[in-house]
């Protein structure tokens, strides 16, 4: 893979350069140097030297590669779904109920500090794609709820956290979510507490259970709870010159 901030430009570079016509020598050098980076540094230098010594030959080779790539299609481009938000769609799109989605919890939660009913932030990890089009982009915000939060207590009782996903906000409306169940308990020492008290009465009361934590960045699967139709955005009026 190419690296660097202009990676996307380089992905489509061969085709673009083919259309553009003559190629400056430094672009060819960069192209081959970048390919050479995957090998050892010696190989990289060798490729560069060949190009400098035989610019015509190298140009021909590069052109041949570009033609092959343009005919077969760039793999990264072919596999990439068309990024076409519903705003650009011409017809309403419905996200069916029970569509599986992946969510990420954005803030750390702990059975020690969280409260039952507390709301926490979520975001969509993978975009929702229907018919090859991205309908809801990755990163769309949502919210979850702490269904149960209990801190650990005496007698070896563990801390507990139960989290659910509530909704995701799309175009200002809430899409209800379901089926995300993160149920975590800390270390359960209730048996140890009772056993201790059998030996030394009431000492088991001092045994504390373990707390549990859900780290920020934790991923979980959820489902949409209802059909959700996204209406197309109104077409810009061509007469008022809004179209750019």
């Amino acid at each position, binding site marked *: 893979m190419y690296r660097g901030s202009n990676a996307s430009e380089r992905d489509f570079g061969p085709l673009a350069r083919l259309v553009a016509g003559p190629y400056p020598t430094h672009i060819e050098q960069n192209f081959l140097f970048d390919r050479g980076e995957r090998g050892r540094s010696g190989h990289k230098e060798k490729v560069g030297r060949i190009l400098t010594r035989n610019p015509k030959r190298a140009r021909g080779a590069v052109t041949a590669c570009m033609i092959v790539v343009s005919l077969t299609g760039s793999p990264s481009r072919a596999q990439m779904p068309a990024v076409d938000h519903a705003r650009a769609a011409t017809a309403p799109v419905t996200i069916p109920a029970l569509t599986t989605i992946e969510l990420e919890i954005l803030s750390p939660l702990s059975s020690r500090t969280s409260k039952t009913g507390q709301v926490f932030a979520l975001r969509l990890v993978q975009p929702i794609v229907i018919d090859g089009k991205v309908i809801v982009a990755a990163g769309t915000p949502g919210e979850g709820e702490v269904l149960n939060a209990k801190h650990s207590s005496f*007698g070896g009782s563990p801390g507990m956290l139960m989290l659910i996903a509530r909704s995701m906000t799309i175009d200002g409306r809430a899409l209800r979510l379901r089926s995300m169940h993160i149920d975590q308990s800390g270390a*359960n020492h209730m048996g140890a507490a*009772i056993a201790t008290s059998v030996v030394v009465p009431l000492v088991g009361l001092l045994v504390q259970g373990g707390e549990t934590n859900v780290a920020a960045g934790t991923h979980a699967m959820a489902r949409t709870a209802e059909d959700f139709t996204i209406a197309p955005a109104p077409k810009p009026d061509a007469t008022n010159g809004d179209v750019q």
Partner: protein
Amino acid sequence: MRSPKPALFLTMVAAGACVPLAAKAAPPAQIAPTPPPGKGEIVFFRHGSVLDGPVSCAVHENDAKVSSLPIGHYFVLAAEPGKHRYAVESEARDTINLQVESGEVQYVSCHIKMGVVVGRPVLVPATEAQFTAKKLKEVEPAKVTAAPAPPPS
């Protein structure tokens, strides 16, 4: 003519050796039934041990008793989708909130933790694997009553 006894003996030994392998692939001890259409299901179970003593684990919803869980028993409760709050009580009260979804089964285990005077039952979320880990008896379905709907707030 050669006697078939040795071959028969070897066959029987081989069959005997296969028995433990077959026993390992035994089905789970109990399986929760599929929820009725449009409803979810909650399986309450209690493995328990001798240390639990005679402490009862009676599950309540909206102050109405749903059922009791003796040691080594379970019961299945069909519930409407939405939030439900279940409680168990002895010298202290413990509650658990559940978000019931249609078509889904959730598992809740009852444990007894140590109390000052008597043990205290607590409700803990559990998994299907924990439910099927030990053989349990089902509480008679007639003794399981769905709680009345909560009063409108």
